């Protein structure tokens, strides 16, 4: 069954890059919806959007990616959330994981890397 994806990134360009990469990755992706920051993303989840998977940037205005993950988990949202970011290092990964993130994709990434990271969550 196709997975509906929420992209959370303050860069409209990066949201387009991710949309294209998702479509090229050979995964069964349904609707893709976009939010410009963590606050907007939480509002979209709370408005009842049917989201199966979230890809979130780390550094964003209003609410950053890690705070968004923590808030989403505290509100009971259990869908996989993957961080897509230039942040790296064991401390950052630990911080995101502790907040409730399920995975980490470092920018720049290839469609293959995206498929590998999302393969366990999205049907091929």
């Amino acid at each position, binding site marked *: 069954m196709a997975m509906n994806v929420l992209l959370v990134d303050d*860069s*409209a*360009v990066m949201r*387009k*890059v991710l949309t294209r990469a998702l479509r090229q990755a050979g995964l069964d992706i349904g609707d893709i919806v976009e939010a410009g920051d963590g606050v907007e993303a939480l509002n979209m989840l709370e408005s009842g959007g049917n989201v199966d998977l979230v890809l979130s940037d780390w550094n964003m205005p209003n609410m950053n990616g890690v705070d968004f993950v923590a808030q989403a988990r505290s509100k009971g949202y259990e869908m996989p959330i993957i961080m897509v970011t*230039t942040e*790296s*290092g064991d401390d950052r990964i630990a911080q995101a994981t502790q907040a409730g993130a399920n995975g980490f994709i470092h920018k*720049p990434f*290839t469609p293959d890397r995206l498929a590998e990271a999302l393969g366990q969550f999205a049907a091929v």
Partner: protein
Amino acid sequence: MGNVCQGLDVAALVEESFREVLETMFALPVEKLDSPTIDELAVVGMIGLAGKEFHGLLQIHCTQPAARVLAAALLGGEEMLDDPAMISDSLGELANMLGGSVKQRVDSAGNKVEISLPSVLEGQFETHDARGSERTELAFRVDGQDVLVCFVHEFKNEE
């Protein structure tokens, strides 16, 4: 005692990172040039890297037509390029990804750095590097357009 980053081949890591972003991620052909052949630099995407022992400013300089080619590659076509902001945002995102790739390589060499948010400048300007910094310049032809990548950097605590 010398800096742990002293062994870094800065030119090589910048070239590897630039190729990783454009060739691997966006399938754009990249050819390294012996010298820059850009007459009128008009747009620059920039991002800073800063750590305890190493810091620098990465810059992608190009002309407006080159910026348009790069933006079209990121966005998957020219449909959105009527909005000039999408072109400058694309160059900023390209600088962000280049910075992320360089950061990974510098981190791997044992010197953790953080990167800044990207910035984009348009227009004619001169740049003057801080005293003590080193400038590495690499010229590339990307899908028929020339692009200049500069990395102004400084190793701290050098003997």
